[in-house]
């Protein structure tokens, strides 16, 4: 009896360490990525000059003398993300409402897995779909050459759907039955109940889903590279139907053959992207804490 207790204790201790190390690994990963970005990015920003880097509009890394301004790409990232939100959020939330409140069981069995499948499609497939279908569609219906903020927004809007739908759906489902019963009890219709009682009650969860969607859209690379065109546009020439380069696209397009300060400037682009993500995550925890 004593023996088994001892071995139980040992197991307990051992497993504790296993979990502890697992937790440590993920923290270590974040810390080492941070260190890598900062140690190689900050000197580059210093060498280029913070103002020239963040507010410069000219990106000409192989000219002599070179220019490393990423303002156009910062704005580009903001535009395509905003476009994705405009397209993805209304569809996503309405789909979530449908799934949680109105969907007949036999349809649910089909729609829910389709949404999940959408999340599992690799981004290169989205990019290829965009290049072959969305880009020609935009070109023929709206003009321009098709590689544009609009095409990127459409693709990203589709890509953030699963995030928005699944989180919104579960937060709608988490709204207590009593809310609905109360609303229905005082004579509201089902629709009124859903849109005036349930949705407001689920708003923090829906907001969370939107912010996670923004995170996905800001960070998406491969699909955007394939449909956005990759041009570094001066700010006054940026338009919905004109091509654009985002921060992520800048890194991935030029990383392969770059050297010296050019490479470092791409890592510095990563630092800026990282700051974006930190801001998003901070907003997220702010929402969560204000909710608690």
């Amino acid at each position, binding site marked *: 009896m004593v023996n088994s207790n001892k071995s139980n204790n040992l197991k307990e201790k051992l497993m504790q360490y296993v979990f502890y190390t697992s937790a440590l690994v993920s923290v270590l990963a974040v810390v080492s990525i941070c260190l890598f970005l900062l140690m190689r990015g900050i000197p580059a920003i210093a060498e280029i000059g913070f103002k020239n880097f963040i507010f410069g509009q000219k*990106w*000409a*890394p*192989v*000219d*002599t*003398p070179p220019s490393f301004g990423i303002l156009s790409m910062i704005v580009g990232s903001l535009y395509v993300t905003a476009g994705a939100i405009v397209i993805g959020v209304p*569809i996503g939330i*309405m789909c979530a409402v449908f799934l949680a409140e109105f969907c007949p069981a036999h349809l649910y069995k089909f729609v829910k897995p389709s949404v999940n499948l959408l999340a599992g499609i690799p981004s290169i497939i989205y990019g290829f779909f965009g*290049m*072959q*279908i969305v*880009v*020609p*569609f935009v*070109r*023929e*219906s709206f003009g321009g*050459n*098709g*590689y544009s903020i609009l095409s990127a927004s459409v693709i990203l809007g589709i890509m953030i759907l699963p995030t928005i739908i699944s989180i919104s759906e579960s937060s709608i489902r988490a709204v207590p039955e009593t809310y609905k019963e109360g609303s229905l009890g005082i004579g509201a219709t089902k*629709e*009124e109940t859903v*849109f*005036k009682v349930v949705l407001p009650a689920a708003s923090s969860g829906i907001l969370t889903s939107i912010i996670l969607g923004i995170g996905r859209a800001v960070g998406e690379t491969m699909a955007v*590279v*394939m449909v956005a*065109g*990759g*041009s*570094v*546009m*001066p700010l006054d*020439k940026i338009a919905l139907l*004109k*091509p654009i*380069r985002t921060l992520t696209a800048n890194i*991935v*397009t*030029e*990383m*392969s*053959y*770059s*050297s010296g300060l*050019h490479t470092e400037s791409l890592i510095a682009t990563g630092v800026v992207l990282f700051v974006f993500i930190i801001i998003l995550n901070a907003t997220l925890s702010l929402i969560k804490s204000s909710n608690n």
Partner: protein
Amino acid sequence: MKIVKKLIVVLSLALMVTLVFTGCAKEKTSASQPTENANASDFNSDKDITVIARDSASGTRGAFHELMKIKVKEGDKEIDKLVVGALEFDGTDKVITAVEGDKYAIGYISLGSVSDRIKAASVDSVEATIENVKNKSYKVARPFLLVTKGVENELVKNFLSFADSKQGQEIVESKHYISAVDSPVDYVVSSLSGNIKVAGSTSVTPVMETLQEAYQELNPGVTFEMQSQGSSQGIKAAIDGTYDIGMSSRELKDDEKSKLNEHVLAIDGIAVILNNQNPTSDLSSENITKIFTGEATKWSEVTK
């Protein structure tokens, strides 16, 4: 509330229907594209040219922009005048896909990657073929040279013979360059050891590095020292003897020629590619420069 709801329903329905229908319409047009090759009448030459370039770190872009005078020297400055709004892709495959999908597109890729998905334009009425590059009539090409000074030592000679060999030229071709050796022979392994110092062109560096790796596998006793700071630097280093081999991605000037042994490692040929439906198949180099710098924006401006 009811009206709003109805509106939402109608709008989302409309959105879905348009999506579905355009999807169908799209398939039809893309399916009929290849068969419409002969029918140039729906090519509207007053439409804007879609200019497609590579990303600025690409060696193909560096070469093409220099050869076509898109990148120009002004005093000690060097400025790439690529038109604002040109699409930039990070790979040959993406450039091909983009040109294939857009009737009004123009792009450039290395000659070795041309396929029937797109067509290579003649430049100044010279067809873009490997033969024309080799006989120097096709101008959008440049040699990759390895230069040495005086009598080469055994080790350098052996490495150069490897570069010329079947194995070496296979590496050259795997990088989509044109082999410069007509009938390469098999490389014979030596038992040499020592250090080879190489300096020069950043464009030649990637293929050189691969060659060195393959050479070291066969000759484990040999080490390399690499510097890539541009062709001129490499030529200078070879002339003053600080490096054994200089790499150059341009032809030697006459005074340099007299001082060095020239060794053509490969030829980098670049094809100007157009959509198969484009009735144009010949462009002057002057017009290519105009298109890529934005001086000409419509096909009607560069074709008669």
